[in-house]
């Protein structure tokens, strides 16, 4: 069957199946609508929209649980203190906090004194309604009402019906019944045969069980079954060839995402700055590391050993706080001297060890550094750091980060997992085609707020008429071959 006939068949079947599916979910929809309406009581905003806005604008500084401080205050707590002032003051604060401080607003000054010199980013582009949305989301989370469906009498059954039913047992029962029928029928046939043959005066030789098992037919059947099973396993395994879920290689630098993204809350996009605008998320260059590590010269876990690797790569002299000119032409011997001296000095500072102990320590550490920073193709510590690539898509797959990060607004963790908790990063997702496709089937396109999608007139019409609640990536062609393969 060609694709198009399949497609036609699919469309046809969906035509009849959809109403059934719809019936099943309509009761849940009622429930969800109820929950939404109850939430809106807390503010004049839409908390779902607020969630997206919060993630995009606030989450870098404010804790998502609304209870703990991060760079900025815990919003669930601090917002309550604004209730003494006009609501418009709060909106003003969000849009331009420095302005309000300059005006001498008492609450603003109070916060400033608490958190200075950290300046809250101004959000002049946020509309009042946007802020209301955010506020109602914050409120919902702080009070624990957001995201938890309220228990409504009579809706309990509806919730249960949403649980995916495990229908496998039906098949097993059917299998058993049919098996039984086959055995019974074959017995009947055999008996009838022997009766008819005995009528024909033939000598009937009853087969023993062993005889039946070693008969040609049975052996053939077993071999066939083995071939089928073997092929199935081979194909299954072949499909999984090259997939590397949970791949967690050792990197040349013991870089910890937990410390950087977790403890220090550095935004993913700060280092992987390609994710917003390019196909690649970009492994940051050593120059990017240097924006902090010019000052931060020792690691919390590793001391000098790891950060010295960056210095050796780019040619930064931590003793003199300068970049070495013509570093690429500097003899290896001098490179070694500079960094061994650095390690020695630091070691002595930290442990007041003797010079000879410290030098021995530095020599050891330096030889480790050289080992991890060089390879078959790279003979010197100077130059780019050869990270081991964790996420490998096959060459015939085109994937674009900016499409997913900027346009779709996906959270990095959606595919990469909680990297902020990983000391050593591992591949979180299978990165298989089925995995991609499933997400494309489920994910809703941000249809309303991007004029680009205006050309999808039929969908817009249906949404307006209430015939359609959402447009998924699949609906705009997200499952088509040449969206990813070209």
């Amino acid at each position, binding site marked *: 069957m060609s694709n198009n006939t399949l497609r036609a068949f699919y469309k046809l079947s969906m035509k009849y199946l959809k109403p059934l599916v719809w019936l099943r979910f309509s009761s849940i929809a009622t429930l969800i609508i109820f929950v939404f309406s109850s939430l809106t009581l807390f503010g004049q905003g839409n908390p779902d929209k607020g969630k997206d806005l919060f993630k995009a604008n606030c989450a870098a500084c404010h804790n998502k649980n609304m209870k703990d401080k991060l760079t900025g205050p815990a919003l669930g707590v601090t917002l309550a203190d604004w209730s003494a002032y006009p609501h418009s003051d709060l909106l003003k604060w969000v849009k331009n906090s420095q302005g309000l401080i300059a005006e001498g607003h008492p609450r603003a000054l109070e916060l400033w004194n608490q958190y200075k010199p950290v300046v809250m980013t101004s959000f002049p582009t946020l509309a009042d309604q946007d802020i209301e949305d955010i506020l109602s989301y914050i409120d919902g989370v702080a009070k624990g009402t957001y995201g938890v469906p309220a228990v409504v009498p009579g809706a309990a059954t509806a919730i249960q019906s949403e649980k995916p039913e495990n229908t496998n047992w039906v098949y097993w029962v059917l299998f058993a019944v049919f098996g039984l029928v086959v055995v019974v029928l074959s017995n009947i046939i055999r008996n009838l045969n022997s009766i008819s043959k005995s009528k024909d005066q033939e000598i009937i030789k009853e087969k023993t069980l062993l005889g039946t098992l070693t008969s040609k037919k049975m052996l053939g059947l077993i071999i066939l079954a083995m071939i089928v099973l073997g092929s199935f396993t081979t194909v299954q*395994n072949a499909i999984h060839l090259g997939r590397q879920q949970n791949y967690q290689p050792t990197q040349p630098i013991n870089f910890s995402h937990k410390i950087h993204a977790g403890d220090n809350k550095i935004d993913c996009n700060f280092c992987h700055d390609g994710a917003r605008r*390019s196909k690649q998320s970009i492994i940051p260059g050593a120059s990017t590391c240097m924006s902090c590590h010019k000052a931060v010269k020792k690691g919390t876990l590793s001391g000098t050993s790891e950060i010295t690797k960056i210095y050796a*790569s780019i040619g930064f002299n931590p003793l003199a706080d300068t970049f070495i000119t013509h570093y690429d032409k500097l003899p290896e011997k001098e490179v070694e001297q500079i960094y061994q001296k650095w390690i020695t000095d630091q070691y002595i500072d930290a442990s007041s060890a003797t010079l000879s102990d410290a030098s021995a320590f530095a020599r050891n550490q330096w030889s480790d550094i050289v080992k991890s920073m060089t390879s078959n193709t790279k003979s010197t510590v100077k130059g780019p750091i050869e990270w081991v*690539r964790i996420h490998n898509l096959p*060459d015939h797959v085109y994937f674009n980060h900016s499409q997913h990060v900027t346009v779709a607004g996906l959270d990095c963790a959606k595919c990469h997992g909680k990297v902020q908790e990983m000391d050593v990063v591992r591949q979180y997702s299978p990165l298989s085609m089925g995995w991609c496709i499933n997400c494309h089937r489920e994910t809703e396109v941000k249809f309303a707020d991007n004029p*680009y999608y205006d050309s999808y007139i039929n969908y817009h019409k249906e949404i307006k008429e209430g015939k359609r609640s959402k447009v998924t990536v699949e609906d705009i*062609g997200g499952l088509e071959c040449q969206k990813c393969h070209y």
Partner: protein
Amino acid sequence: MSELKENYWSGVEEFIQDESFIKQTESEFYDLPILNELSEGNTGVESSHSRRDFLKYLGFSVGAATIAAGCESPIRKAIPYVHKPDSIVPGIANYYASTFIKGNDVLPIVVKTREGRPIKIEGNTLSNFSNGGTSARAQASVLDLYDTDRLKQPGAINSRGSFNKVSWEDLDTAVMGKLNPASKVVILSNSICSPSTLAAISTFTTAYPATRHIMYDPVSSSAILMANERSFAKRIFPGYRFDKAKLVVNFGADFLGTWVSPVEYASAWVKTRKLKNFENPDISRLIQFESNMSYTGANADNRMLIKPSEQGLAIAKLYNSVAALTGGGGISVNGTLSNAKAEKSIASVAKDLVTKSKAGQATLIISDSNNVAEQMLINKMNDILGNYGKSIDLTNYSNQRKGIDKDIVTLITEMNGGSVDMVIVLGDANPAYDLPDAKQFTEAYKKVPVRITCTIAPNETSSVCTHSAPDHHFLESWGDSQPRRDVYSVMQPTIAPLYNTRQCETSLLKWAKHPMAALEAGTEYQTFIRENWKSSVFTVQKDFSNFDNFWDNSLHDGIVEFPAAAGSATVLADVSGLGGSITAPTKGSVEVKLYEPMGVGSGAFANNPWLQEMPDPITRSVWNSTLHVPIWWNGDDDFLVFKDFHTDGQLATVATHLAKIEEIPIVRQFGQMRETIGMPLGYGRSMGSPSAVGVGQYAYNFMTRDGDGNIQYWSDKVTVTPTGGTDGNYASVQDHHTLGVRGKDKSGKEINVDEKAIMNIGNGYQGSLTDRSILKSADLKNLDERLKELKEFRTEAASLNNETLYTGFDYLYKQGHHWGLSIDLSACIGCGACQVACVSENNVPIVGKHEVHRHHEMTWMRIDRYYYGDVESPHVFYQPMMCQHCDNAPCENVCPVNATNHSAEGLNQMAYNRCVGTRYCANNCPYKVRRFNWLDYSSADLFVHNENNPLPDGKTKFYEDNIIRMVLNPDVTVRSRGVIEKCSLCVQRIQEGKLKAKIEKRDLRDGDIKTACVTACPTGAIQFGDQNKKDGLLEKHWNDPTTYFVLEEINTKSKVGYKMKVTNQNNDLV
């Protein structure tokens, strides 16, 4: 012959309804007769493996795969920058405006780079000079950068005749040691239109005052320069304004293909060829006099056949007729043209010219003649017709031709006399190859003590030099150019030099001890250009008061163009006595016309495999030079052929008293003057990269010089004899992938008819159609009628069958995007720029001569060539043909694995990894646009026999080299053996354009997405758009009354709209 006029035909075989040809058109995949295949010996695939070997291999591969599966996956590295440059974001292309300069070609371009490596050339749309167009050569030039056979470091000759590696310091010391203020140095180059290069040369001449700079051109316009010097006391090449001329009368100049500045001319000329209103249709006219079917002749409205030696006579006769009609006196000429029709036409052409001139319209007469008297007559005619200041601009003259042919003759004498101490050969100048007296030159040249070459790749001249100071490729260079006086174009490097090379201008500055030569390496010439612009162009312009701003802006735009000034008044020399100076026609001998081919040009482009594999627009042959021989209708029932040449690819021996070619394959050429042959220059290189050496035959020595020393690109007294043999690998794509345009046989019987369908259903039913809507043409005189026919045809086609297998998809198709193309066949001149652009953009492999011979070329886009009209001198119909992305695609529903299917945006998608290579789709494609990877072209296969070695040396695997692979577009998959591929409508560009609009949160506009072919086209013939966009570009084009769809009647619902070809013939000449 008149009975055949309404038909289209693609070549001789189709015209004479050759049985084997017809049979071949039935099947998509051509099979060579097996005996032929086995006897060839030199096949890409050896068949010495038995079935047992196959089983062994099978067992081995299964075993290997099992072991491989048990091992760990390879460790892949992700290597970031150390210092990430701000301007480079990996994954995002950067575009830089620059200038393409190679050989005699100059063009403002935009270079697409990815992660710091140039991968694609686009047109500069800001330029009114090129109008955003490019040429096939410009498109292919990016591959030259990664040529692995370039000269990689400075060298000095050793005892074995090759270069020893030396350092630049040593080379400079050696060269400067030979220089003193009295040194008689000659700097030899092709015409240079770069003001800064000329300034650098003049610093050298100032330092060593006995230095002379000699410019010459392999295909020169020496006579035009000399004629203008005599006519106006200005040794200049005029600025031709084809956009102003209502009638162009052209004696042999190939201005749309190769002559001087083809992109400038073609893009201007096409402006006058676009039908704007249908009430009162008006387009310009082109009348061509020539012997050999040229690229321009192919696009002419009327073509008159004359012998090469008769060109002067024809010009003189036209002059007399024009003079007579305008009341002036003629010159005395004797003789008549051997073609009676051409003789008769002169009066009509003169009438046409004078009528237009009297109506105040500009006309234009041009010629490629290299005879001074003939060019003076042309000047005089243009003056009589009032063309100066209108279609010819002497103020804004062209800088692209400056060479005077006889300078080289003088140089040879001087070198023989020992009065030259040093010769520096700049750029692509290759006098040891591209002169009629190249042999004499080489001999004399060897007598010069110091001979320095500054070429980028080895050639015949560099092989006889003593020192080599290799130049950067233009994509690594700083530079500028002034192709026309009012047009400046800047060149900037887009990649750091790949090898230890140095710009030749820097070398000149160093040797001249210019103060700037002491600057930091790599910045010398850059600073020099800046300073030069500061004192020249900056002082002329009025838009900027700050030089830095001006310079930055110029670099950004790539061009600085000044408003066109009015042409100057002219004083013309008397021409009445020139009758005796024009070429005297010779009678009774075969004559050869030598022409510059589109691909390899004068030979400077022969190193480029993309150009070698671009089919010649006329002969459609690749990887070879072919001899055009005439074929003509006897006026009754048969073809007459020249000298028993019955099949294309037959070998001939060609000789004159000067030169001889033992074996050259012939192609029977319609529209070739009888008793004349055509032969391309630029082939038969003996030194160069593997793709140049051994390809085609050397033809420069067939040329002669006239009394002024001007090179004559033709010769008489030629003997042509069949050798009796045939080129076993003759590679012409003409009969590959034919659509089967068939009409009536010789007796007038329709032969493309399904008799059964007629009997059962009646005439006119789809199955019995004879009028396949592949080609549609009209002339202004029958335009109304043809448009009416077209309308009726389209209505009928729609009513025949408007069913679809896929109902209900309109819902998806009518929203979002639905892509399509529009191709204007009147604007398509067949230049091949789109084809090379497609190769460059989509990583289309080159396959080499043998594979093309076996119909295995991989190009996603082809330009079909058909003939129609007068058999003796037919019109040529060029039709770019690529995947039509049918909504009812016949290829899709035959794929057993669903590897090709349809997207909601109307793209016919191809998933390579699904394809198992059944090739059913290709068999079912009525447009024959699908290509199968018979071999591995990416050097990724485990088995060496599956790999293809396209270059003539049979060893070089093209994409094996890591340097060459840098040219690949990282956004397009490199396909493996055994899969089908085809035009994707540049889906990577579509996705990129969509993403950009999404990120910027705006709707997608026309022009956001341009496919590679669209950006390459010099005439704007190809347009890309969204069918769903109301009042959009595509809607505008598709609603044009001339638009039709190829094979609309079979209801494929294709999405490439073609606009019919419209000509404007002079009826008196038909």
